[in-house]
């Protein structure tokens, strides 16, 4: 059996939880050994809460039993001719950057469990994909969180009806059995993303001295327990916190960005329906530039055209006609803007943008929850752009061609980041053995 000290040493150096053992950052950027060269350095996941209907968005059904349930047209888009719903006019323009995976399966068809499963169901550790990625790649910026969920509405947005949330709650974005510090930090207030950044001490120098004093005080205790690694980690976390005081406001400060009219336009910061989503995706881009590994932007509840409100959980014809167009409106323009922006900045190669929900829709009742078939798309990060991978059956309910299981998605995403799902392990536990790579989506 491995000795604990040896174990801590190993896991720390392999995991990016170095001294501070923290997803927020660490004392030094670790020299992580990738298992193979990988392109993805960061992931931006636009999560569609409620399970979007593939048949209304990116997977045109070959056969429609009830035209009432399929009011939206699809158009062949870009050079690649990918068929995309009319609800995404802007994404249609960047179709050649997308890799649409139409054969997702293995999701759980209830919301809470589905959310937990789609994000964290691939290992007995129940760690979220973001936690695994951060664990595997290590921090990209010692002064910032490595795993973030962006929620909230910008001031003045009275259009969106919620801040955005992830089904399954903390467990969906948690660290599971991985070190707890790898869990996502949820940003709730876009105006004040991280609290308590103002020190009562008068200067940085004073604070530096204070930190050394704290470290010295702590040696009285840790000296008694040299083998307890957490103690030093905790002391170090104060130093990380100190550095965050200056790094975090800079990272989250959008004031310069929003002065630029082309940025405002690109992310849709002026029209109400795209204002909050655009802001969050712009923030996500800033965080990616600063080395943050995994950023989830959950969709918000939106008003329905017919009164009321809703999210992607569209069960009835009334919901789908009223809510789906607005849900698409909220993310279409900002996502297309994000892809274009990342591309122009040369970041798209290393950033994987994902769109998808916790399940698909279809099967009995046609708009019901469906775990046997769902669609995600990805852009950047070395995916095969301008392609559609896999297919569902005639009615678009069940993945039949090149099926990609939820766990295969995780394995493939990690693979693209240079991490081998067979080798990535914590305390000897890794991803499920049955993971397969969806080779066909990697360019």
């Amino acid at each position, binding site marked *: 059996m491995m000795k*604990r*000290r040896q174990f801590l040493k190993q896991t720390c150096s392999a995991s990016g939880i170095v001294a*501070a*053992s*923290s*997803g*927020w*950052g660490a004392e030094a950027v670790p020299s992580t050994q990738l298992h193979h060269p990988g392109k993805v350095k960061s992931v931006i996941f636009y999560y569609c809460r409620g399970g979007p209907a593939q048949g209304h968005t990116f997977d045109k059904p070959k056969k429609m039993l009830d035209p009432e349930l399929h009011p939206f047209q699809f158009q062949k888009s870009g050079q690649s001719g990918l068929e995309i719903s009319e609800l995404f006019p802007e994404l249609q323009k960047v179709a050649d950057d997308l890799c649409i995976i139409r054969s997702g*399966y293995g999701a759980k*068809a*209830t*919301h*809470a*469990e589905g959310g937990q499963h789609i994000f964290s169901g691939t290992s007995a550790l129940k760690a979220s994909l973001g936690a695994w990625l951060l664990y595997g790649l290590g921090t990209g910026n010692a002064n910032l969180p490595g795993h973030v969920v962006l929620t909230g509405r*910008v*001031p*003045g947005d*009275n259009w969106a009806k919620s801040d955005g949330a992830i089904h399954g*709650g*903390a*467990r969906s974005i948690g660290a599971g059995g991985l*070190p*707890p*510090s790898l869990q996502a*930090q949820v940003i709730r207030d876009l105006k004040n993303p*991280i*609290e*308590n*950044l*103002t*020190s*009562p001490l008068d200067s940085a120098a004073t604070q530096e001295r*204070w930190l050394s*004093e*704290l470290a010295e*005080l*702590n040696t*009285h*205790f*840790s000296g*008694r*327990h040299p*083998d*307890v690694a*957490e*103690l030093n*980690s*905790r*002391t170090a*976390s*104060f130093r*990380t*916190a*100190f550095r*965050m*005081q200056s790094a975090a406001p800079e990272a989250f400060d959008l004031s310069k960005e929003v002065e630029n009219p082309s940025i405002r336009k690109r992310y849709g910061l*002026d029209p109400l329906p795209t204002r909050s989503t655009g802001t969050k995706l712009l923030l996500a881009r800033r965080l990616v530039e600063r080395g943050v590994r995994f950023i989830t932007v959950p969709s918000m509840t939106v008003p329905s055209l017919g*009164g*009321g409100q809703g999210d992607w959980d569209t069960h009835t014809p009334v919901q789908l006609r009223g809510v789906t167009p607005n849900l698409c409106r909220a993310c279409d323009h900002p996502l297309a803007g994000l892809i274009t922006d990342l591309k122009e900045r040369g970041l798209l190669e290393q950033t994987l943008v994902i769109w998808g929900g916790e399940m698909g829709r279809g099967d*009995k009742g046609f708009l019901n929850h469906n775990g046997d078939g769902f669609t995600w798309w990805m852009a950047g990060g070395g995916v095969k752009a301008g392609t559609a991978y896999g297919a569902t059956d005639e009615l678009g309910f069940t993945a039949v061609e090149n099926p990609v299981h939820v766990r295969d998605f995780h394995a493939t995403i990690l693979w693209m980041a240079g991490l081998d799902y067979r080798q990535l392990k914590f305390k000897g536990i890794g991803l499920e053995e049955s993971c397969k790579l969806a080779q066909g989506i990697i360019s």
Partner: protein
Amino acid sequence: MKLIFYLSVGACLLLSSAIAKDPVSFEREVLPLLEHRCNECHHPEDSQGGLDLTRVATILRGGDDDGPAAIPGNPGESPLVLRVTGETKPRMPKKEEPLPDHEIDLLKRWVAEGARDDTPEFSQEDLTFFEKEIRPVLFTHCFKCHAGKDPESGLMLSSRYGILAGGNRGPVVIPGDPEQSFLLSAVRHEGVLKMPKGGDKLSEEKIASLEEWIRRGLPWPSDEKVLTREKLFTISDADREHWAFRPLPTSAGSIDTILEKRWQAEDLEPAPSADRHRLLRRVSYDLIGYPPTPEEIANYINDDSPGAFEKVVDRLLSSDLYGTRWGRHWLDYTRNGANGQQNRGPEMLPARYAKWVTDCFNQDVPYDWFAQTHLAGDLMPGRDGSGYSIDLALAAAVPLNGARTFQNAATETFALMDKLDEGVEFMGRSLMGISLECARCHDHKFDPISQRDYYALLGFFQSSWFGPVPSDTKSPAEAFAAVERERELLQEKAHFDGLIRVEATRISSHGGELRNRWMKERQGFLKPWDKRLMELEVAVLQGELKASADKKLKLDIQTAIDERELNLSDFKQRFFDVRSLKEIGYQIGGHKSEIGLIVRSEKLGLIDLQKELSTWKERFETERLEWWERHRFGSFRKGDPEVEQLTKWDDEVVKIDAELEKLRAARIVVRCEGGLRRAEELAEFAAEAKADKRQFYPDLVPAWFGDARLLDRGDVMEPRELIPRGFPTFFGGEQTHIDEKSSGRLELAKWIITQDSTQSALVARAAVNRMWLHLFGEGLCRSPKELGRLGEIPEMPELIDALAVKLIKSGWSKKSVIREIVISNAYQQSAITESKQDPANRFFARQNVRRLEAEPIVNTMTWIGEGRRDGNLLGEVHYLSHFDPPTTDDLIEKRVASIAPTQALFLMNQPTATQKVASDLVRRLKLDSLELPDCLDVIYESVYQRHPTDSELTFAREFIERRRSQVEKSITTEEISEFIQLLLCSNELIYLE
């Protein structure tokens, strides 16, 4: 898995049809196809239409209708072919997808080639050998996993063709060549794969038989191609011998003797005893969640009598704070005693439940009774002799309080099933320490719990739900009657509402024409109202624009104003209906997080505007009520001559509402008898409701009692046979008599603590293991929610057993076992160790350094700052949230202790955190009036509950003097305060050693 299996079968078939040269094999190609597509209905035990398609002979004989199913050489006239192509109706297989072309081709070719049987013939001797030596081995050791439609790893061992086809890892047997057969190396445990997985290793004789069988070429009976079409649940000796499933010993040795024996065997040197200050601090936190007071420290330090520590322990155990601390641990296993707020269920008074739990721990009620209340408290008499107790009924609702939503539980079977599943999960994980819920979809892969066992247990929960009972209920029967009365009233109400709805639509002519006309006319009437409202909104916005200093915010407000002014310049009113009128009410008056225009104008000091808005709010509300009325009465108003009948009905509804309201005011929602109906039985009630013209509410049908159906793969869309309520086979499996009008939970509660039973041993083991966890930072078994075979194997099961025996013998007194652990030498050891052995401390030869949980951290701060030790956490939510508070989502196994810079930011920078606590302490103890050495001593005693060492004193003096020299003052409280703050941020404060 299913998919993979079919794919491999499919691929196999594709491959074989591609190579057209070889003749088609009945055994390897046709039979698997028939088994996959047809033989669920056409096998010897269930030969529908008299047809058995498992053998060539019976195929040639045929069934009742078509005569011979295959005519050799003539596929065009063979019913087998004609039925699958659909040329003869009905097409086969019934209710399934038609066969794909390549499969039909295969059948055609086989018939065309003469419908030959290529199954080898075996001698009588071979067959006898199979019956005597092989069949029992397969049944006892293999069919738990490798049988049925979805065999483990794609390998089906229940048929010869399945064995020949192999599994996902490839072929497993080369007939005639045992040494090349993977099957043999797996049962010999030669390679990575050791079979049977989790079961008993086969005896040498059995392995030799398998070897012989392969050598003989896999003899198989010709008349029984498939031995079983389902997986067979079996219990192995390894199950019976698992540490947590063994019977408890009859007597128990002392904790220290057991440990010392193991330390000797492992050659471990135990740590010395902790010093008195640190020991007192540890035991104080562990038992009451607070540090000791200066008086308590002094009393203990100065007490030289031999029983000094026991005195401390007894004092702590009799403190009311003990119940708060240990009750909190219990709440962790109950999903925080959460209520339905987050999952849109009924409010089940979590605070009252928590208070009751605290009292139970303080009174040290027998744990077996306490555990029972969580299954059937609503059916048990109160401890005070009363016939019924609301508190117990609340405890019984705990299994329902999981994270899964209550929403649609009545209408959507899967929502209900998930909710009930949480009940089984709670019973398994929290009371017994095993994962019963794993058997929902299939037999438990590791523990001896079958899928049938799961549904036998589920029936108890399915026959129960929740409901409102009067707070002065005297008996379970009264509670039941109250719940039924409420359902009746709601039913009646639904009846009248239904009548009104149908009649109103009729009156309104042509499905609502009058109503629509009224609504349309009213739009025009409301136009000036709507416009005025928007003008008022602009006025409020303009006020806010003026008052705002933030540049970005100003921009946003201006945009909003522009949008509205644009609209006003060519005013288009919004479309009104009942709902939009309600939303206007929110817009003016506010709702939940939405701040209304009235409050916004009030904040700006715009009194006139506020007044006008208030009148508009009233007007719109009156309007909304009228709309609602017109809608309900088919465009008329209540009391109009046209709606005389409707008015009468509505009066009935008003009466019912009044009674309901009266009842509800005095009612509390608790666990109750009588569940919701199984989905497939709802149809008749739905039809009845339809005939009665009323809305159908599945949760309002009379209370239902009955067994649960087994769900194939746990899927509510695939119900199978009814499983009588009862207890798992492994635990004796006895059926129990359950009254017709009873859920049987009372029997379940009695069963779980049956004396000397495997299940009550588990309940005791799970409980003592958790006590150890809370006193050492780790359980003796480190997977406290999973003592079964999937969990971690403890190093010292004999210690768990000893503690479990002690618990039972003490009359299930938790306090007495906690006391025994705490006064053991093991507990009192120091956490410091020179030894480098056993780094993970699996043998507890020392104490652990462990971080305090969120609540004791908050307690510490309130104690230091305010000198208060009352267990009150109110107003400290902020603190809690930073230090891993318990979640309501899950049954907590062990609290996590994260380290995050956000914690550091909070402690350093948040003014109400350490800054406030430090200055409070200075004020409270008047530290500014003390000389420095005394002052430091008091500080150390208050914060760390010990005296400072010399080097710490030097450090403290330097710290303070450094600051004084800077500000050139001799003494201020600020430096003292700053020093305390440093201590409050230190590791020693929140780590126990």
